[in-house]
């Protein structure tokens, strides 16, 4: 479903990603774990075609061209659900309108389907009673749940989460992780980027360690091949995933 083949990305003189190769199948959960500046967010930006690789090839589903036309890029993004660390909700709209916007952008659903889809998504994240609230009226945890509702409302095949708990205090962070775990167990593939080990473990995700743009093992040693180990079969029970974070994934 998502494949990176010898992908490098350079920003001027800085090498943000160095010869990274990894693959994930449908229904998998992968967590990119590493300190700030290790290239984790660059991976997400390559998946969404916000940037193009300096070398190598990125394949997302059936999208594999090096540079997509604007229309195809928009189409790709509509197949993904994206959660940002700063939520990126529209402050001039209610939570309902924010989630409904994703439905309208998808353009696949009739007008009469919008309300039930949005309400279902809000119920899944526990915000159905706050549908008419504006983002500024919600706590950080609630805003992140609203962002999750927006990401899942169209039932995407893949959900990308960029540091979804970084702006949250402990309890809210745990709630968000539990929510993501439940969503993943319902079949959505998940690519998570985080600096927190406990978040990756909480999801039962296959962990890929990055440091300074390079693939490293769990001890921080650079892996010369730059290839993350293939996935084990996806699990929905985190207890079965204990010890699943091996060298390079």
């Amino acid at each position: 479903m998502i494949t990176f083949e010898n992908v490098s990305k350079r920003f001027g003189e800085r090498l943000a990603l160095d010869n990274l190769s990894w693959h994930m199948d449908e229904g998998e959960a992968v967590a990119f774990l590493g300190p700030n500046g290790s290239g984790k967010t660059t991976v997400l930006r390559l998946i969404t075609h916000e940037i193009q690789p300096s070398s190598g090839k990125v394949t997302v589903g059936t999208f594999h061209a090096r540079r997509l036309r604007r229309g195809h890029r928009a189409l790709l993004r509509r197949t993904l659900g994206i959660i940002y660390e700063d939520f990126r909700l529209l402050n001039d709209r209610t939570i309902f309108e924010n989630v409904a916007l994703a439905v309208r952008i998808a353009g696949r659903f009739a007008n009469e389907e919008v309300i039930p889809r949005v309400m279902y998504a809000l119920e899944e994240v526990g915000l159905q009673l706050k549908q008419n609230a504006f983002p500024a009226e919600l706590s950080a945890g609630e805003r992140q749940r609203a962002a999750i509702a927006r990401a899942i409302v169209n039932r995407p095949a893949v959900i990308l989460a960029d540091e979804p708990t970084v702006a949250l205090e402990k309890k809210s962070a745990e709630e968000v992780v539990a929510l993501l775990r439940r969503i993943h167990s319902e079949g959505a593939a998940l690519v998570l980027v985080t600096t927190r080990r406990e978040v990756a473990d909480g999801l039962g995700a296959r962990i890929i360690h990055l440091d300074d743009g390079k693939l490293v093992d769990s001890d921080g040693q650079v892996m010369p091949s730059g290839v993350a180990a293939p996935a084990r079969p996806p699990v929905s029970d985190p207890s079965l995933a204990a010890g699943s974070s091996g060298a390079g994934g």
Partner: protein
Amino acid sequence: MHLFYLREAARSFRQHRGLAYTAVFSLTAALTLSGVLLLLTHNAEVQMQALGDRREMVVYLRDDVTPSQRDVLVGRLTDLYGPVTYVSKEDAWKDFSKQLGDPSLLEAVPDNPLPASLRVKLRPALLTPGAMDLAAKQIGEFPEVEDVRYGEEWVHRLDQIGATLIKGTIAVGVVVALAILFIVYNTIRLTVLARRPQVEIMSRLGATDGFIAVPFVLEAMFEAGLAAFLSLALLFGVQQGLSARVVGLVFLPPTYALAFVGAAIGVAWLAAMLALSRVLRAVGP
């Protein structure tokens, strides 16, 4: 979905009222200037048509024309050029006396020197300088005709004035269209840049350029339409105010007014599309 776009356009208009009102004000000023010239041109056309209705060619007859020859000539001229009225020497003398106002002034004149004449009311198709020149020449060649007069100088002048006004209106119209293009183009650019965070989020969620652009285009068209109606209202006020002093000053007919509004909206649409095709590429991630 169309309701969604309209709501988005309304939301953008509300959130950037200052920018929107500035655009409407500027567009109204530009359109009013164009509207003034359009109004002047239309009124000039109306007046010239009215004058044209009264345009007559006076055909002076030779003194030795017999009644039967005159009747044959009247028939020919009616067939070729339009309705003909016969003014006898006596009628001409009476008209002249009335114009003078004091019949005693004419007592010293022993004989009536005025010739009989035919007043030819030309058909509308002949009311152009070229056609009138030709008609006068042709009528002058009849043997019964002494002379033909029709005020060729002011006919030419009126038509020149009309042509100049039309050219002026077109020139001003082009300048105003460019002004509208400029105003709307920059307003849309500024509006998109002001809404950059929203545009970026929509782009990241997979919105196409069309999805993002339609509300802005609708907003631009609304602003231009509003400005056009305001300028028409201003022009109407001016026309009503002046019509007491300037007899016969009329407002634009409905078709002109609709075309005026339509043209403003059309130019705004074009300007918005041009602006968005450039600015969305710069803003969207």
